[in-house]
């Protein structure tokens, strides 16, 4: 579904990505784990075409995203839904308008009854009811905002959902909730997901496969079990903090 091949990117003198290669299979959840400044957000921005690589390619469903520009890129992005770290809901719009926004922009002639139906349907996927429709983003808790953000990402029926640090800054109960949300979206809708995270517990819970990023390179990649047994010194150190707690 997503193929990243030998991806290089630098900003000025700062070499952020140094030859990343990975594959994400359809219908699975792939987690990219890494500390701050490891380049994981930059990697995700390449996948959705917000950044252009210096070298290497990103293909989604066979289409080379990294080579597209303008309208072609805009169209190619329709296979994606993205959930931002801060949820990034439009704070000048109600919850209904937020979730409806991508669909309304894509199909400008959509009937309002159908629009409302689709919005309610997606909110139900993330276990939210109609009572939130007329509320404002600032009135919701962090966990609820994340769920609205996922509903908004799902409304265009994307094939791939990208999550940018979905559990950062959330309390343990809300974190568990968001993990459930990611697993549910996969099970109910068969969506392919890419999750960027530094939350090890959450990563091992939701991942089918994962990669550990260190200094712009992949230090380990595989199923959760394979990564757990990795002999790479950074990976061992990175994971040990968490295993000690177990």
């Amino acid at each position, binding site marked *: 579904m997503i193929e990243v091949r030998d991806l290089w990117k630098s900003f000025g003198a700062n070499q952020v990505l140094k030859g990343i290669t990975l594959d994400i299979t359809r219908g699975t959840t792939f987690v990219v784990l890494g500390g701050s400044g490891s380049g994981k957000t930059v990697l995700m921005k390449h996948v959705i075409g917000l950044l252009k690589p210096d070298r290497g390619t990103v293909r989604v469903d066979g289409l080379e995203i990294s080579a597209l520009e303008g309208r072609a890129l805009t169209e190619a992005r329709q296979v994606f839904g993205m959930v931002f770290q801060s949820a990034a809901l439009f704070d000048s719009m109600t919850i209904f308008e937020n979730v409806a926004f*991508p669909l309304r922009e894509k199909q400008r002639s959509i009937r309002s009854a159908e629009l409302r139906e689709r919005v309610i349907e997606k909110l139900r996927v993330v276990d939210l009811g109609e009572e939130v429709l007329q509320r404002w983003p600032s009135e919701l808790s962090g966990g609820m905002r994340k769920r609205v953000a996922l509903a908004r990402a799902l409304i265009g029926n994307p094939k791939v959902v990208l999550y940018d640090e979905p559990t950062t800054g959330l309390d343990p109960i809300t974190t568990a909730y968001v993990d459930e949300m990611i697993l549910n979206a996969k099970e109910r809708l068969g969506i392919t997901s890419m999750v960027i995270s530094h939350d090890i517990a959450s990563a091992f819970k939701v991942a089918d496969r994962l990669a550990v990023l260190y200094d712009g390179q992949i230090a380990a990649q595989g199923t959760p079990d394979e990564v757990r047994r990795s002999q790479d010194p950074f990976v061992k150190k990175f994971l040990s903090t968490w295993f000690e707690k177990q």
Partner: protein
Amino acid sequence: MVGRVRAAFEDFGDMLFFAGEVGAWALRPPFRLELLLAQMAAIGVGSTFIVAVTGVFTGMVLALQMNYALHQFSAEGFVGGSVALTLVRELSPVLTALMVTGRSGSAIATELGTMRVTEQIDAMETMAVSPIQYLVVPRVVASIIMFPLLTMLFSAIGWAGGYLMGVYVAQIPPGPFIEHTRTMVEIKDLMSGIYKGLAFGVLVSIVSTYRGFRASGGATGVGEGTTRAVVMSSIGILVVNYAITLITVGI
């Protein structure tokens, strides 16, 4: 020093490129009339009060000063015309633009800056909606339409304020006051003010949206962007005004 000059030039170039993108997106469907109307209300209708207040006081002060000066030549009858000419050619476009920069330019830069640092602009981009078309174009087009209209409003209210002071306070007969306004102000004078209004509308809206769009680094970054938007717009207004006057009046 060399580095700073270079950075300033790069910044300016980037802004011109941004302006070009705005122009390209403005011509491309879909045209979002409801967003344009909302911005015309916010930038235009919302600024009428402050423009009216500035206009009436400017006109009143101008009439009193003109009367003071022209009285020495027993030429008080020319107060009306002088006030009108000064307003439509210079003061209305410049003061309107400065007031609207303070009110709406800062609001635009803050709003877009906040949307940038809270990832709302990135989010829009990932939804296959161009944030330039959705957010920037309506603000720029609304400014281009509303700045000349506000400039005309400023002139009208300013002249009325001048009439009040001239006729009722300085006791100038209303006949010559109105007659000399008619003869002294020509269509080309009115147009010169409107052209300036158009130019300032483009300038202020592009600078403000650009500063908001390129904001980074949280609340401080948004504040810094807004400050730079207001400072750059204000200086730009004065410089562009000088340039247009030089071209239209000559030396």
